[in-house]
């Protein structure tokens, strides 16, 4: 993926992003603590990590569903965090998102055709007829039957079909960036493959860039060009998909890989060899490297000094004092 990171300016550039939520008068939830990365045009970046590591918060900040505490998000050359009012409205159609619970993200009382057409109404500049025509075309593009399905309500659809509806709705404004927050986690295996294949083909067809959040490493490996691993609000490692899966450098990445259950009885069962079972609280994250409390390779320095995210090979950056396979 070195081509994409070297050539033209990236579509999206996130720079030292911090998102904090006040818990009460004295305490703060440090959800995202200084995350920087870039996303090239047409690229798919995977974002993995345990629940509570801040991956969804990061995604929401990128699409401006919430305002970061500090840091910058450059999208098409503009810092979207500084935009207000009309300029922000103008950029929103290009930033779209789909969610894990597709059924809950649809209005249950509204026919799905209307929901799919809605973004065009919000955006303005389309009359009702052209909105409906566009919605019907998009339904076909995501594999729904526009004639039969347009006037139906969400409860008449399965979870996989609802996710297709959500994808159609997100693509109506022809976004450049689609953020997918665990889009297949609630789906059965047979349907999950349908949606993953659909996303891959739509990406080609509409020239999308994707941020793909998932806790399932096999899914991420299947769909992404590059992968970022997050732990307690920080990036541990970001690398091209081959490098990350073949030679993980961060002990946390290695632990995640070791814990993945593969459907292969000849492979020894996944192991959970992390020290302790608990992910520490983001209210009071550990000093030094945030992973040191669970790291099997932690040294005294790890609890004192926080490691920088530094380049260990072309396109691979790791935040660890003692990276595992620093070959290259």
């Amino acid at each position: 993926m070195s081509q994409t990171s070297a050539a033209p300016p990236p579509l999206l550039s996130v720079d030292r992003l911090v998102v904090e939520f006040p818990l009460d008068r004295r305490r703060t939830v440090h959800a995202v603590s200084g995350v920087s990365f870039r996303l090239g045009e047409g690229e798919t970046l995977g974002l993995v990590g345990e629940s509570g590591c801040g991956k969804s918060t990061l995604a929401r900040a990128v699409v401006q569903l919430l305002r970061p505490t500090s840091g910058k998000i450059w999208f098409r050359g503009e810092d979207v965090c500084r935009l207000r009012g009309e300029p922000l409205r103008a950029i929103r159609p290009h930033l779209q998102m789909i969610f894990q619970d597709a059924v809950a993200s649809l209005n249950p009382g509204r026919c799905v055709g209307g929901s799919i057409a809605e973004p065009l109404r919000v955006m303005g500049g389309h009359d009702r007829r052209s909105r409906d025509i566009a919605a019907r075309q998009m339904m076909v593009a995501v594999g729904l039957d526009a004639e039969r399905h347009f006037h139906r309500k969400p409860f008449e659809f399965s979870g996989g079909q609802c996710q297709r509806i959500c994808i159609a709705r997100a693509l109506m404004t022809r976004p450049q960036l689609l953020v997918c927050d665990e889009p297949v986690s609630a789906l059965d295996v047979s349907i999950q493959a349908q949606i993953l294949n659909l996303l891959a083909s739509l990406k080609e067809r509409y020239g999308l860039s994707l941020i793909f959040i998932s806790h399932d490493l096999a899914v991420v490996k299947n769909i992404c060009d590059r992968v970022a691993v997050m732990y307690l609000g920080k990036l541990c490692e970001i690398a091209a998909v081959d490098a990350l899966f073949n030679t993980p450098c961060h002990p946390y990445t290695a632990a995640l890989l070791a814990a993945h259950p593969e459907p292969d009885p000849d492979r020894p069962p996944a192991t959970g060899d992390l020290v302790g079972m608990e992910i520490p609280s983001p209210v009071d994250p550990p000093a030094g490297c945030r992973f040191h409390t669970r790291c099997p390779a932690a040294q005294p320095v790890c609890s004192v000094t926080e490691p920088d995210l530094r380049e260990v090979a072309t396109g691979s950056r790791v935040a660890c004092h003692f990276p595992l396979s620093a070959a290259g």
Partner: protein
Amino acid sequence: MSPPRSTPLLAIGDLSVALPAMQGCVRAVDGVTLSVTAGQAVGLVGESGCGKSMLAKALMGLLPREAEIGPTSQIHFDGRPLLALSPRERRTITGRKMAMVFQDPMTALNPVMRVGRQISEVLRHHLGLDRRAARQRALALLRQVGVSMPRRRLDHYPHQLSGGLRQRVAIAIALACGPRLLIADEPTTALDVTVQAGILDLLARCQKAQAMAMLLISHDLGVVAGRTQRTAVMYAGRILELAPTRKLFGKPRLPYTRALLDAMPRLANPPRTPLKAIGGQPPDMTHLPPGCAFAPRCRWARGRCRVETPPLESGRGGDHDHRVACWYPLEGA
């Protein structure tokens, strides 16, 4: 059922569970026959709505009131016919000799009762221990399931624990009376992968140490793969394939199992390996097609599949431990 070498610990025979629905009724479990030998781990996999949880609930006597068990259904546990016992007699078995761990430990635990008391309650009820002895045993159990700072945890409420710890507490409760069979229904589905591996290790360890049998129910073929001796695949209320786990994953004979394995993204595959999705939608249990329920989605389906329901039979080559319910089973590559 083929005559087993020794009497199985759990023998389910032709179990059917019907639930009333808007139109008519739904056969959530439809003629399931399955046995679990003492000390053995059996996996039960299937997609959501296939009836695997209903099967578990039927075993534990936790079915909703309106559910109806078929007249020819039988469940034998340790030689005793569970369905013929009075509720009182049955309660001496369930919770004691046969225990269950649920998917969501938050709803399985009582939110307003301290952890220690929840464990002690089981011990006092089933084993008649006094308060002090029960508390001592509860402490030992927490230690056994790998809960850190067990003495302090005894006085915690469930909401003070993480998801993984809560599931460990739920396992401690299930193990409290030294059951001979543990039914684990999606025990790690709500947990992160790192925690999942730890919980599955723990279950395997307890199973070995206490020679306990386990029925491990999951939608995730990966969870069942390395941790069971036999695996059953369920679809639309029926078991369609039952085989030693290695055989089932290596040489599945059921087109549905093959399709599931092909649809799963794997770490072993190179990036961007196209997935072979299974077409169509999961079966609508209120309107099941005639014949094989998987036929509308099956690449190999022929005329007979859409008319007659195939029985679960052992292979033609006399392969008794590999049974499949399919008119045209795959020959195995």
